[in-house]
């Protein structure tokens, strides 16, 4: 095992230990999340959609399930479970779209599992998780018709997007939907900042399950991220100081 490999394993181990530890200490040291207006507005928007008989649309992005592009989509799947529970009592349950076939299958699995857990198996439809287009811009091109046909009122982008994120968010804005959008790509985040009603900046896209109360482990992982972040900050500052001195 090389030194780099060992360092990587140690870092992963520390991350894992911190996550488990914070989850175990949650009862004694409750995790308080900082205020993010986007998620508060999202909760209210979902409630309004449920009461108004309108639909929530969740987009898991155009990234492939193989590779780092899958990470924000996996966070979106965790959020999907919560959203599906919330909308299970609505006339129009949540609908999911992706730009990747495997991600669409995962979305359908998540929906089916969630509806089974809430004893609402009849709500599951195979078309609830669908592939809109195999390429990013073809995916974006399929959004307007879907938003109109499904009577969407909450348009949520939580996945890996490229430049098509700007179009995707704009289509939701044009349809007067509540638009909350986040991506792992920095350039897409810049587009979404200008276009979306509620943009998610940085790693806020990965915090979606925690803010939707998906579980204590999700909140604990946020705290572990903060801990590792401060360690990295300290190392960076130390490195700058050392480099400057030497």
């Amino acid at each position, binding site marked *: 095992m090389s030194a780099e490999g060992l360092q990587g394993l140690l870092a992963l181990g520390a991350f894992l230990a911190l996550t488990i530890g914070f989850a175990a200490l949650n009862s004694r040291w409750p995790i308080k999340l900082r205020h993010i207006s986007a998620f508060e507005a999202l909760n209210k928007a979902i409630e309004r959609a449920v009461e108004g008989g309108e639909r929530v649309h969740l987009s898991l992005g155009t990234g492939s399930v193989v*590779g780092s592009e899958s990470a924000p989509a996996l966070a979106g799947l965790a959020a999907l479970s919560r959203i599906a529970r919330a909308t299970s009592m609505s006339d129009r349950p949540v609908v999911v779209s992706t730009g990747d076939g495997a991600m669409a299958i995962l979305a359908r699995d998540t929906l089916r599992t969630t509806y089974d857990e809430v004893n609402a198996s009849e709500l599951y439809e195979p078309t609830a998780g669908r592939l809109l287009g195999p390429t990013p811009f073809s995916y974006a091109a399929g959004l307007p018709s879907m938003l109109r046909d499904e009577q969407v009122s909450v348009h949520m982008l939580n996945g890996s997007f490229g*430049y098509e994120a700007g179009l995707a968010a704009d289509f939701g804005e044009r349809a007067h939907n509540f638009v909350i959008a986040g991506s792992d790509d*920095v*350039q897409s985040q810049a587009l979404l900042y200008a276009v979306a009603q509620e943009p998610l900046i940085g790693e806020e896209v990965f915090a979606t399950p925690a803010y939707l109360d998906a579980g204590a482990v999700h909140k604990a992982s946020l705290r572990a991220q903060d801990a590792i972040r401060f360690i990295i900050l300290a190392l960076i500052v130390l490195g700058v100081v050392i480099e400057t001195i030497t």
Partner: protein
Amino acid sequence: MAEIQCPNCGKPNPDTAETCQHCGEPLGSGSDWMNEIQEQADGMAPGPGGSSPFAPVEPSEVEQPAEENGGLAEGEVPEWLQRIRAKQAADEGGGDDFSALRPGFSDEQDQEAEQGLETVEGRGPVGGVGPGGKDQEPADRAAEPEDIRAGFGFGSDSDPDYAPYEKSAEPDTGIPSWLAQSDEPQPPAGAQPAGGTESDQPEGGLPHVPALLGEQPVGLSAEELGVPDWLGEVEQSEEGGEETLKGRRPAAAAPPDLERATLPNWLEAMRPVDTFRSVVQIDAEDDQTIESIGPLAGLRGVLMAEPVVAMPRTSTVGAMQLEVSERQYAQAELLQQLITEEESSEPAAPRRRTRLAIFRWAIAAVTVVAAALPVLTGAPSFALPGLEPKELGALFDLVDRLPPDRPALFVFDYDPGNTGELDAVAGALLDQVMGRGLPVASVSTRPTGAPQALYTMHRYASRHGYVEGSDMVHLGYLSGGPAAVQLFASNPRGAILKGFALPEEMKSAGQTAWDSPTLERVSSLSDFSIVAVITAGSETARLWVEQAGSALGETPLVMVLSAAAEPLVRPYYEASQPQIDGILTGLPAAVAYEQRNGRFGLALDRWNGFGAGMLAAELVLLAGAGYGLVRWVMARREA
């Protein structure tokens, strides 16, 4: 043997009996006062009309024998009796029906009885028509038949003037027989009995008291009186059989005309007075309206609820002063306001007109016109870049030093949407590479990358006479993401098996891209002369740097980027140990590169349109800032 009348059924019972022999009602203290009265009445003189005390008697015929008083002295005569007698004396001539009702009663007593009878008649015959056809005055209905009878001084059976109330042939209805038999008593003097005769009066019986319930009014039919049908039906029940409201008397007999009874003092005292005395004047029967709704429909004289209930009157008790705080006042006002707003109808909001997306259309028009004008008209014209990026020279020199016998690998990792920019930027580098005669190979990690490479390379291949299959070859689509890149970096021939858009002769010969002269000596990534990654995303650039960097060896890695990806990829180039050997970013750098190369291509073709579009974007943003400023100033002025 004296008899006691049962207070319940009115039937005579021996005085020693404790309970009624007919109905079982206790004949206890309740009958004591009856017995007393009976005893007093026994001393009364019989009426001149005969044995019946109800027989009409002329006042002059009224004697005041001592034995009439039952042996009682003058002072021992009850007050009520005295009143009756007095009234009788005062009402000589039959002006008062009641005075002739019973001889021997004093006027006062007569008056009391009359008042009592008034009370009784107040709820008596339908239509309020009393005996003699007179209109009845409203009277309190406090008196019960038994009480009235007592007030009349009904005596016991030993009273010679008292004749036991003869039991009628009617069945036992539970109503006192004296009350039920309205035809028995003789009508008083001056009264016109309704069909009744003196012979109808019970022989020696108790004075008749007008029936409390529904006696047939004299001379009027049920229809004239507005009697409800059900009441009329009840009236028309079988004779002597069914119990009816008015069935206490034979249907054929007309009720006698009776004088009003006056209540004795003690009874009068029991009645609450002056508390809720109605101030409503009961109209005459003809003036009374007939109730039209509700269960009392068809009846006259129905009390109206509203005038009585809702009539404002001051409370005799001092009104309470409410203590209301300011907060409660405010809440009350708020509630009032809410109710008022709820009732008030708001004018309909003007229908929102569908607004044309003016700004969107205007900006689109400005952008399109700006980009198209230089192409169509040649103006505006923008100067070529006088300064070139500092990394441009290094890249140019790097490409200039490439060995001519080793192929260059171009990775087309961008979507067709980025064709407009990256075709021009990549074209500048391709043009130089092809100008030096280096064999070129292409690969892509996107499905649309392979045809994209074909489209872009064909443009420059034709310029330099490159032949497919010998001077350039396409490896095609490399599926699998990062793992595929790593696999390709370590074993290119294992990652790509066939190739893309191979010449027909190679296909027919069953050859792959690796069999072409371009790639026949390539077995690893380091066998290429240069690897140029063309991408619009920083993630793709980082992927190739991280996955393929270790397998490149001495082969330079060059990034051809969109302007948006430059900030994140440049650190790889400017690091102390750079992982990228060259970088070419954006259209301005491409134009400068073409300038340096001496061969202009797509970059120069799009330069003026690019400049005009950028200028239009700047103007739009400034216009937006100005628009916002104007709106702010106007809002401040209005405020």
